[in-house]
């Protein structure tokens, strides 16, 4: 409505003063938090300190890196938490204490994730159910399915072959002594998703459909395919996170609870725009690390859980307010 007049005058585009490389503030916040953690616990600079931190943050970071795909495309994926549960429970059921089965169980879980992502995408694209509701339904369904499958008590232990990814540290690395496999997984998965989002057509298409789906459609963007891909990426990241979490901590039936909201929170802290059009994979990963760092810090300084909830809530709101403020100040409508 306003656009017509806003853009009326052909201003010779007073070129924006110097395009300084804009660094997402989340990185500064993360750095500050890490300094604070170090101050409250000097042992943090030891490899065990920061490596444990990274290892523990890896699942959420991967999840956020996947969730950002759906958020950039304009939606939400609430089903990731229960997909994590399904991955852990399902792996336990399929492995059935057989360590040699890992090689096919992991692909099988990825296949399940793929199916979940496709269904989410199809329901949103073709049944036109808003993703908030579609993935909420999926979340409830998957949770029920995980329990139904295992009758509430998953059958097998997760063998060391499976737990390798989430638990093992590779020793004997110069300088840093050791490196957790989970961190390697995060680096590999994260760079894949970075490349896909920021270097390929898919990434630009995701931004386009989140920014203005109608314009994207009129420009020939295959809306459905792109949207389904976003949900698939998110689901696959959930399976990956599930494998890491199962590896890190073993079988349990409520591993995934609450992860969906944490992942969205991480993306928001990373400056993603809800309802689409803006977001970055590294910033979302940084957002996840920030969130984990906040929890760790609050743990170290011995704040009780209630305070942690309040802090998380306040940070969430402040992050969004600041992002909005920055954008408004930067001009535009």
């Amino acid at each position, binding site marked *: 409505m306003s656009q017509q007049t806003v853009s009326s005058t052909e201003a010779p585009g007073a070129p924006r003063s110097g395009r300084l490389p804009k660094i997402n503030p989340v990185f500064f916040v993360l750095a500050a938090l890490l300094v604070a953690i170090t101050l409250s616990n000097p042992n943090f600079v030891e490899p065990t300190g920061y490596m444990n931190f990274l290892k523990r943050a890896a699942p959420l970071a991967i999840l956020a890196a996947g969730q950002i795909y759906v958020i950039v495309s304009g939606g939400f994926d609430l089903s990731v938490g229960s997909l994590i549960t399904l991955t852990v429970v399902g792996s336990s059921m399929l492995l059935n204490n057989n360590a040699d089965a890992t090689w096919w169980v992991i692909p099988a879980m990825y296949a399940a994730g793929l199916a979940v992502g496709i269904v989410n995408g199809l329901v949103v694209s073709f049944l*036109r159910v*808003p993703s908030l*509701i579609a993935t909420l339904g999926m979340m409830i369904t998957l*949770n*029920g399915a995980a329990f139904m499958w295992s009758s509430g008590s998953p059958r097998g232990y997760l063998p060391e072959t499976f737990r390798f990814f989430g638990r093992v540290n590779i020793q004997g690395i110069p300088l840093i002594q050791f490196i957790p496999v989970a961190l390697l997984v995060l680096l590999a998965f994260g760079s894949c998703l970075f490349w896909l989002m920021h270097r390929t057509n898919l990434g630009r298409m995701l931004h386009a459909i989140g920014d203005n789906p109608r314009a994207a459609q009129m420009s020939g963007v295959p809306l459905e395919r792109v949207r389904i891909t976003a949900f698939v990426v998110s689901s696959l990241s959930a399976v990956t996170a599930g494998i890491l979490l199962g590896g890190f901590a073993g079988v349990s039936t409520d591993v995934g609870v609450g992860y969906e909201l944490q992942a969205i929170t991480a993306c928001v802290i990373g400056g993603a725009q809800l309802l689409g059009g803006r977001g970055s994979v590294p910033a979302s990963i940084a957002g996840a690390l920030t969130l984990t760092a906040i929890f760790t810090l609050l743990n170290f300084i011995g704040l009780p*859980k*209630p305070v942690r909830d309040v802090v998380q*809530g306040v940070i969430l*709101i402040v992050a969004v307010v600041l992002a*909005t403020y920055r954008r408004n100040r930067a001009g535009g409508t």
Partner: protein
Amino acid sequence: MNAATLIKRLPSRIERYSPALLLAAALLIYIAIALSLGLTRFLTPEAAISILNRSIALGMTAVGQTFAILVGSIDLSVAHLISASAVVSSAIMNGDPAMMVPAVLVVLLMGALVGTLNGLMITRLEVNPLIATLGMALVIQGCLASFHGKFGGSVPDAFQFFAYGVVLGLPFSLMVLTLVVVGAWVVLRFTRFGSNVYSVGGNRDTARAAGIKTDRVVIASHILCSLCASLAGLYLASRLKSGSPWIGTEGAYDLESIAVVVIGGTILSGGKGGIWGTVAGVIIFSLIDSIFNLAGVDAFAKQVMRGIIIVAAVAFYAVRSKRIVA
């Protein structure tokens, strides 16, 4: 009026009765299952009342959520507000009938405060409603947990009349819910504020251009939403004799109330829908619950089916629209 416009207006007529259609379908399934299992006693008026009685808290919350969604917002903090209301009311009453009125007042005031804050964050700070209310939920949860081990207390027997009292053969709580529903209907249908809710939800710019103070409408809707949640909290405190800090979250009232509202045909982006759809949605949910209980479906399978039903019901409305959703 030519043929083309007639064709165009036909679907919008059907759409208006879709919640009723869904409700009828659920009712039919219920009756069919009851008959096929030979459980005719589940088809009596008493059974109907007991089905309705299942969803008093959800009903109250959903009425409030309808306002939030109609105005183009959403409220994820209701579940925690319900817990907080139940805990605070039972802590203040602490078995003393004299404290009933102050407790109710404090709880409603708290609801109004939470609603106002939600509304202010959304309008003045321009925070996405999902994030604003999610943040609020976390803050409430934190405040609640900081009272952990200190809650206790219980409501006096007199207060339990709210949940268990019977007036003229009808449960008192059901009458309260009916009152809330009718009240909400009157507000939406017969007050200027109600019209404004639809207008702001339909198109905020248009509403503003027509001279509506849109921020106030959003804030007021959130206050109503929170008040309804507080009322639900009071009801639960009365029903359970005491408030526990997980009462709202264990009932998943945040997501369930949203699900019920959209199943009732109110669209998530706002401006279209209404209270009767929500009522239909609530009854559908209760019926589903009862159907599952009747048919002896186990809890996990029930969950699976409930998830599918939510999506299917919303798809039922949405699939015809040409609008792109995300």
